[in-house]
């Protein structure tokens, strides 16, 4: 992403949440709802990242563990653990986070492009890093977070079964 258009696209409202020690943000437009962690039905033979499925008012929605996603040990539920339901390509997906913080308005000029950590630490899924009084927040491009190999593979399988139906 060119840095000139970078500023224009990253400003706006974000829902921020905590994962371990870090603070993340997702665009408020992507967020459908926030719910307490409810029992998740495990789906056999899916990657670790997939916690399972939940019943979201009659819809079956998959839930992903963001800890696993970012290579941390599996989430240990606490009373702050939440599921944020986000929409990715018009599909609803739940992500489990340690705690939900607040909705903040981030100005484009507060956002720095993600620094390069070399090939070992991919930063494709980051829109940028917002710096403010609250410290650094990693702004996620949620569609890219969930568009990595394992989700892509299950999505394409789902698409295939849909078109076959």
């Amino acid at each position, binding site marked *: 992403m060119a840095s000139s258009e970078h500023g224009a696209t990253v400003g706006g409202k974000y829902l921020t949440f905590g994962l371990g020690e870090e603070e993340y943000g997702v665009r408020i437009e992507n967020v459908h709802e926030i719910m307490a962690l409810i029992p998740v039905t495990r789906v056999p033979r899916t990657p670790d990242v997939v916690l399972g499925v939940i*019943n979201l008012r009659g819809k079956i929605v998959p839930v992903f563990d963001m800890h696993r996603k970012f290579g941390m040990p599996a989430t240990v539920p606490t009373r702050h653990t939440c599921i944020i339901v986000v929409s990715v390509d018009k599909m609803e997906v739940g992500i489990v986070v340690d705690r939900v913080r607040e909705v903040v308005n981030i100005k484009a000029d507060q956002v720095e492009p993600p620094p390069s950590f070399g090939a070992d630490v991919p930063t494709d899924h980051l829109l940028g890093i917002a710096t403010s009084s609250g410290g650094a927040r990693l702004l996620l491009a949620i569609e890219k977070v969930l568009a990595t190999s394992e989700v892509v593979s299950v999505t394409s399988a789902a698409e295939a079964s849909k078109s076959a139906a």
Partner: protein
Amino acid sequence: MAPGDTATLTGLHEELARWISTATLEGEVARIATSARDLLAKALASPEADRAEHIDEAARLLASMTSCEPALQEAPAAVASPPKPAEPAAAPAGRPIVDDGFEIFETGTPTPRNETPGATMTLASAQERELMGEFVVEARQNLADAEAALLELEAHPDDKQAIDRVFRAFHTVKGVSAMLGFNAIAAFAHAAESLLSRIRTGELRCTGRNATLTLRAIDALRGCIDGVEKSLDGTSPLELPGTLAALIGALGAPDTGRGAATDVGALPAIPVDVPLASEIAGTRVPGKGDGDSAWMRVRTDRLDRLIDMVGELVIAQSMVSQDPVLVMPKHEEFRKKVAHGAKIVRELQDLSMSLRMVPLKSTFQKLNRVVRDVVQRTEKDVRFFTDGDETEIDRNMVDVVADPLVHMVRNAVDHGVESKEERIAAGKPAQGTVRLSAFHSGGHLVLRLSDDGKGMDRKAIAAKAIERGIIRSDAAMTEDEVLNLIFEPGFSTRDTVTDISGRGVGMDVVKRGVEALKGRIETTTVLGKGTTFTIHVPLTLSITDGMLVRVGQERFILPTVAIRTSFRPTKDMLSKVAGRGEFVRVRDEFVSVFRLHHIFDIEGAEQDPTKALVVVVDYGEGRSAFLVDELLTQQQVVSKGLASSLLTVPGVAGGAILGDGRVGLILDPPGLVALAHQTNGWVNAA
């Protein structure tokens, strides 16, 4: 119409002349109509090359009538679209009173769309597209009505109500397509309508070639409607079937019955001046409305969502009803209120399930047509009876059920029922009977198709199966098992089966279709007397009868239809092959056992089979057993694809919301077995 088409021009002239003489015309209208008639007469008298001018002038005159007499718009509106004014649509429909009765369309001059059959054109504004969308739906309904009526008419050529229904359907399609500017469709419908009007007046009979012509016209109009629908997205141009022109020609040259003088002689002449309008006004209401209900079209996605939400409500309600708080004595009043709510929710659920149910009527109508076509082709004499076309089934299943039925009905007529000569030789009535009945039984839809044909010869089936390498010998097979061989893929080809049993063309396809619907099919046959197929399918695909099973701490749903039996095995019932493949003896049969906790890698499950349960499951061609910890309960669940959740997992057919609001996974036995083999291989390799 080409200026050289003398027949059409003559017809046009006659129609106009008749209209002038039967309708009471006054003043300006009378003058214009007469001039137009004279112009057409002049055109007829002229050499072909000079006709166009006169025809154009006549069309202009007819068009100008639109402005002076609103009641007579029908006639001129259809012609008011140069540059093809001499379309057959120019005929003023002979009986303006008819049109007067219920014509609400055809106002003003339609925008001409320069479409020609087989050619393309582009479409218009969003608003127009919406109208066109409605037209598509209505026209399909009209054509289906017409088809049904036509088939009736063929059986009872003197059924005046039937011919009126056919006529009206064509007329409506014609009118609306003219209004929307689909002149080629309107012109074609008009050509068909002209033929029908000749049938209606008794000039022609609706039999043989004429009936076939009209049916073809219905098919062609369906093609047109499909074209319109495809063009609705606003990007694709309208494509019409290329056969329209040829068919218009054929419609103009019907079987006048002159070859068969007896036919004409037997025909009671119906005077032209019968007050048809009143007739139609009288028959229209009972013809159209199958009752008093008003109808409304609803988007299916909204309907599906509504049904989903009601399902959720039921679960939410049951969670409230089962709350321990309610049993406390001090909450007596509250308990009553909750019970009242529960009653309403139950009713709401019944109602919502019925919303998606539609009668089988349209499917049965299609089958009528199938029978007719096969009968025509094979020159057999077959009567097709249907019972229970009001039986309802989930809208999503209608088309899926129709496919195997079409196949089977065609088979019954083509191969089941013998030729007239064979029947007479066998001492049967020359006319064969095929009967299809539908009814509800035990939460299932039952479809029974029987014929009084030659039946199937088990010996011949077994011999053919051996020849085709499907079985080696039928020595150990029961009669039913032999009969079921007709469902084997590769059992039949057209000629071989026609020779031996008269059945079985693509019966494997039928069986697969029925199984896809979680249904089953039964066959009974008596040699020389006939064959009956009985199909049982669930009323809706979205509800699965399931057995909730527990494995460790996890629960799964096994479709009940697949479960044969379940039991706790004793040690001596179990055996192993090569130390790993496990088998269980079920009566005299050995069935492989797969441990669900192995396949799905579930911790905390019972390891000792003699303390667990074996569930024997039938699927496709096989039978397997799965080891589970416990059977919890049997319940109906609304199955939802996991596709909406991005996850597709082998061995899992979908998910459902269980009574406690959590998601349960519905197992897919064939997938599980495939998975088990795969897992075994993987374990061995490691």
